[in-house]
C-alpha cells in the first residue's frame, strides 16, 4: 500500500510544484480573476501536456523493455525517438507552410516510429537474438544516422526562410504556450495506450520467462509484437511530434519502477506513467526555475539526468 502511495504522492508534489511555480505568484492568481484565467489557459494546459508526455513515454519504455526482454531497450536508446523526431522535422520541412502540417507532422512521426520499432522487433527475434550489446550498438547507429539526417535537413531547410520558419519554431522550446488541444491529444494517446496494453501485462510477464516458455503458455508472439509495436510507435511518435525530444525518460522510468515495484508488467504499466509524469514535470520545473532568467528545455534536463543514469546501469551490468 505504501509502495503504491509513494508514486502518487510524488506525482501530487510534482504537480503542485509545476502548478504553483510560474511567472505569476499563486497569491495573485487566487485574488485576481484575470490572472486566474491566465493560470487556467496558459499554465494548466502546459503542465497537463508535460505530464501526459512523460506518462506516454513511460508506457513506451515499459512495452519496449518487455517486448525486447531487455531493460536497456527503450525508444530513446534504440533510436526510435530520434527517428520520429527526424520524421517530424522532414514533415515540417515539406508541409510547414501548409495547414496540412497539423495532421502530417504527427502522422509521419508516428508511422516512422512504428516502422522502426517493427524492424527492430523483427531483428531482435532474428539475427541479434539474445545479444544485448549488438542491440545497443544497433540503437547507437540508428541514433547517429537519424541525428545526422535531422541536422542535415535542418541545415538544408534553414537556407529557405519560408520553409525554415515553421521548423525553427518547432525546434525552439518544447512546451511553451502549449494549449488544451495538445494536452487533450496526448491524453487520448496515453489513454488509448493504457487501455490497449494493460491486458497485455500478463503476456509480457510470460514473455519475460523466455520465448519458448511463453509459446508453451499460449502466447502468440507475432500478435503481441504487432500490437505492442503499434502502441510504442504511437506514443513515441506523438510525443516527438507535439513535444520534441525527451531523451532517456522511456529508459530510466521503467527501470526505476521495476526496482521499486517488481517485474510484473501490469503493475509497471500502471505505475511507470505516474513516475514518467513526475520526472518530466520536475524536469520542466527545474528547467524553468533553476537557471532564471534563462529557461532550459525539458529535453536538455532529461538528457543531463538520463545519460549518467544510463551509463551507471551499463557499468553495473558490465556491458561497458
Amino acid at each position, binding site marked *: 500500500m505504501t509502495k503504491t502511495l509513494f508514486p502518487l504522492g510524488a506525482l501530487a508534489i510534482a504537480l503542485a510544484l509545476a502548478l504553483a511555480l*510560474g*511567472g*505569476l505568484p499563486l497569491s495573485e492568481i487566487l485574488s485576481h480573476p*484575470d*490572472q486566474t*484565467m*491566465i*493560470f487556467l*489557459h*496558459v*499554465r494548466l494546459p502546459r503542465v497537463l501536456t508535460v505530464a501526459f508526455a512523460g506518462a506516454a513515454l513511460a508506457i513506451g519504455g515499459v512495452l519496449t523493455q518487455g517486448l525486447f526482454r531487455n531493460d536497456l531497450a527503450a525508444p530513446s536508446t534504440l533510436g526510435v525517438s530520434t527517428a520520429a523526431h527526424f520524421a517530424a522535422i522532414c514533415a515540417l520541412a515539406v508541409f510547414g507552410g501548409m495547414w496540412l502540417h497539423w495532421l502530417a507532422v504527427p502522422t509521419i512521426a508516428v508511422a516512422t516510429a512504428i516502422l522502426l520499432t517493427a524492424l527492430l522487433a523483427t531483428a531482435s527475434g532474428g539475427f541479434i537474438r539474445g545479444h544485448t550489446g549488438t542491440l545497443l550498438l544497433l540503437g547507437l547507429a540508428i541514433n547517429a544516422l537519424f541525428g545526422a539526417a535531422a541536422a542535415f535537413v535542418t*541545415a538544408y531547410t*534553414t*537556407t*529557405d*526562410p519560408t520553409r*525554415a*520558419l*515553421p521548423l*525553427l*519554431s518547432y525546434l*525552439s*522550446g518544447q512546451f*511553451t*504556450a*502549449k*494549449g488544451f488541444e495538445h494536452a487533450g491529444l496526448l491524453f487520448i494517446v496515453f489513454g488509448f495506450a493504457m487501455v490497449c496494453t494493460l491486458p497485455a501485462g500478463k503476456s509480457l510477464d510470460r514473455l519475460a520467462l523466455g520465448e519458448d516458455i511463453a509459446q508453451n503458455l499460449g502466447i502468440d508472439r507475432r500478435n503481441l509484437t504487432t500490437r505492442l509495436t503499434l502502441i510504442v510507435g504511437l506514443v513515441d511518435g506523438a510525443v516527438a511530434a507535439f513535444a520534441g525530444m525527451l531523451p532517456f525518460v522511456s529508459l530510466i522510468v521503467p527501470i526505476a519502477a521495476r526496482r521499486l515495484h517488481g517485474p510484473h508488467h501490469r503493475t509497471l504499466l500502471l505505475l511507470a506513467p505516474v513516475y514518467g509524469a513526475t520526472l518530466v514535470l520536475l524536469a520542466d520545473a527545474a528547467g524553468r526555475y533553476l537557471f532564471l*532568467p534563462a*529557461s532550459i528545455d525539458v529535453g536538455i534536463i532529461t538528457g543531463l539526468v538520463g545519460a549518467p543514469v544510463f551509463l551507471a546501469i551499463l557499468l553495473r551490468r558490465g556491458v561497458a
Partner: protein
Amino acid sequence: MLLFSLWITLLATAAPVEDARGLLVKLAEPPKRIASYSVGSDEILLDLVGPERLIAVTSLAHDRRYSDRDFSKIKLKTDTDLELVIAAKPDLVVLATFNRREVVKKFSDFNIPTFVMGDFTSIAAVEKNIVDIGKLVHAQDRAKALVATMEEKIRALVPPKQTPTLLLVADGGFVPGKGTLFTAIAIAAGCQNIAENLVDGFNRVDRERLAQLKPDFLVLPGEDTSRPVADPLLEKMRLAGRAVAIPERYLSSISTSVADAAVALHSQITAKLDTQGKAIK
C-alpha cells in the same frame, strides 16, 4: 463640408494592415501597451512610439551587442514568461514569423490583437514593415519620416568607382548569399556580396570554395578587426588588412539600423580603397 469631414474621419481611422499570416489587422484606437517579440520590432516600435507605449521587449533588445537603443525603461521581457506578458494586458503584440505559432495563438485566445511580421530579406521589405507597423500603431507620419531618413542615408552613399566584392562569414561558418539582408546592405553600400551567386539564403560553404572566391574585403561581425579569426584562410585576409568590422547589431537588425549598416559598411570600405577605387593591398 460633409464630404470633407468624412474624409478627415477616414484619415483618422487607421486602415487595416495585412500581416504575414494574410490577416487584416486593424486597431480602432492607438495601442498604448505594446509587446514585441523580435529585436527588429523592438527597435521599430521604439522609434515609432517611444518607450512610453511599449510594455515588453525581447532580452536581446537590452543587449548592447544586438541593439544600441535605450530600452532601460521597459522592464518586462517577452521571452522569459508568457504568463507575465499576458498579465501585463498588452493591447497589441508584434511578433515575427519565426516566433512559435502556439504563442501567437495564445494571445488570440485572450483576444489580444497580434501582428506577425513576415519578409525581412531586403531593405524594401524592412521599410514596408516599418510603414505597416506605423499604420497599425497610428504613427503613419513618423513611419514615413523614418523610411525617408533611411532612404536619404542610403542615397547619400557615393558608390566606389569599381564595385568591391565582400564576403561575410558569420559564426559557425555560415555565409549569407542570395536573398539575404546582407546582400541588400552590400548593394546599398555600393558593394557586391561575392557569395550571392554561390548560395541561397544562409548556408555553410566549403572552405575550398571560399578560397576560390577571392573577395576584395572580408566582413567580420564585431566592433573592430583586431580579434583573430579561427579559419586560417580568413585570418590571412584579416592580417593583410582586407577586413572590415560591422557591429553585430547592424548585421542582425531588421529595423532602420539596416541603413546604418550600409553607411558603416560604405565608410569602412571606401577608407580602404585607393583613388582608382581598387582595394589597397
